[in-house]
């Protein structure tokens, strides 16, 4: 059985204790909401897309260390990046969580940075949903922003 250290890496606990980009944004920022019906976790993503760039992102809601740290890392990773790059990262992250959405194999050449630490979650299948919650919510926010 994998140990707790495989799941709760230091950097994860750091993002959990000091979440990045925490807060909310007023319209015209778009807002999307994700729920994990299993454990009651809730994530809110506020997003401003300007000229094809993720100009600003804030994260609200409450949840476990995995869902919260994943959201925090995600916000740091996509802020200031082009929308396509953000979408590619969503695809890559879900692939890392062994969620097969079809489509092409993601390009894994660029370093993942802090997100690498979430790799251990795959060994704890019930927690994959926690890790992926914010990413699905971001995908929805990007869809809304593109409308």
């Amino acid at each position: 059985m994998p140990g707790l250290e495989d799941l709760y890496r230091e950097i994860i606990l750091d993002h959990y204790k000091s979440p990045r980009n925490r807060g909310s944004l007023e319209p015209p920022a778009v807002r999307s909401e994700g729920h994990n019906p299993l454990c009651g976790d809730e994530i809110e993503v506020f997003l401003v897309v300007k000229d094809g760039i993720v100009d600003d992102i804030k994260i609200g809601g409450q949840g476990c260390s995995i869902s919260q740290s994943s959201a925090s890392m995600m916000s740091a990773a996509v802020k200031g990046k082009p929308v396509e790059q953000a979408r590619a990262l969503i695809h890559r992250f879900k692939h890392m969580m062994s969620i097969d959405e079809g489509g092409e194999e993601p390009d894994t050449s660029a370093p993942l940075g802090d997100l690498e630490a979430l790799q251990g979650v795959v060994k704890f299948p019930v927690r994959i949903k926690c890790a992926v919650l914010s990413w699905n919510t971001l995908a929805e926010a990007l869809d809304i922003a593109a409308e």
Partner: protein
Amino acid sequence: MSFDVQKVRADFPVLAELINGKPLVYLDSANTSQKPNAVIDAMTQFMQHGYAPTNRSAYQLAAEATDKFEGARAKVAAFINAPKVHEVLYTKNATEALNLIVRSWGSANLSAGDAVVLTHMEHHANIVPWQMLAAERGFTIRWVPLTSDGLLDLSNLSTLLDGAKAFSFTAMSNVLGTINPIKELCAAAHKAGAIAIVDACQAVPHMPTDVQAWDADFVTFSSHKMVGPSGIGILWGRESLLDAMPPFLGGGNMISDVKLEGFTCAELPAKFEAGTQPIIEAIGLGAAVDYLTAIGMDNVRAHEYDMTVLALNSLNDRFGSDITIHGSTDAALRGATISFAYRDVHPHDISQVLDQNNVCVRAGHHCAKPLMRILGSNATVRASFYLYNTPSDVTALCDALSEAGDFFTL
């Protein structure tokens, strides 16, 4: 008969298993209970030697299977002191039993302008079916609120019940552990002219049940929480109500005749038992009832009372202000289902650390989201004890909890 928890444990093979070299500390019986050999063997024996269709075929094996299937019904009837055996109906689980009441009795009796009373501590199974029918029919749902210590606030009950047609409530909260004053609530419903529906899912496994003493109109529960198999539940209802109700599911077994122009219903209980029934599960449920009866439900309740006192005291002594236990602190008013918050550590993270020590608890909203909103949290940790849990399980819980605290010190 004196109660010996070690003897009880020996009846449950899974409790002797080691997982990753460590014993199992099963504290999730409010979710679903473990199974004793008596149940496992009865089902296996039946499948090996006695399996056949029920109520359909004339050969000896089928007649014997039918006798066993109906014998289990009689055991359940005696267990809950039902006046008539044919008032005991097999369903898939408590959820289906509640849906049956709402769809059948509710459709025949509720329309715009009517009201149904529920409480803030209901399981989704006793909320959503009513909301589904209310959306079609336009009747209103009124709610009995809670006191700050997790009991029903009955101060406005007669106003809430005024003009209501049904009062449906849980006998015991699956989150707070609160045991409700069932008799008093049924009496209040009847005084207002409403029927009384008792969701006894968390009560029947843990304390003596007497539907006549309660003076209830409908009572629902699930086999899997009372050491029986999953896949079968019970609806008990008053014969006069069941007779007047339209059928729920249509198909084989529930008819007396079918013509091209229409059908006529079978008598109770078949009227509400469409299709091939959970035959093996009924045999298992009968064995579960025999098992619990031999132990004695007073003994089960007494043991769980002791476990509740010990768990509440241990958690408070060891964790003091770091722990917030929801619900009443009085073990006389509650069952051994204990929900709590521990510091700022998220329940999901706590259960992960507990799982590392084979301590099985539930972390989440416990299918009672309206109640969770009232408690002001998305999730709690819930440790629930049953007849096979011991003081050492309480110690294991506390030890694992302090490990979680160390790990997540914020």
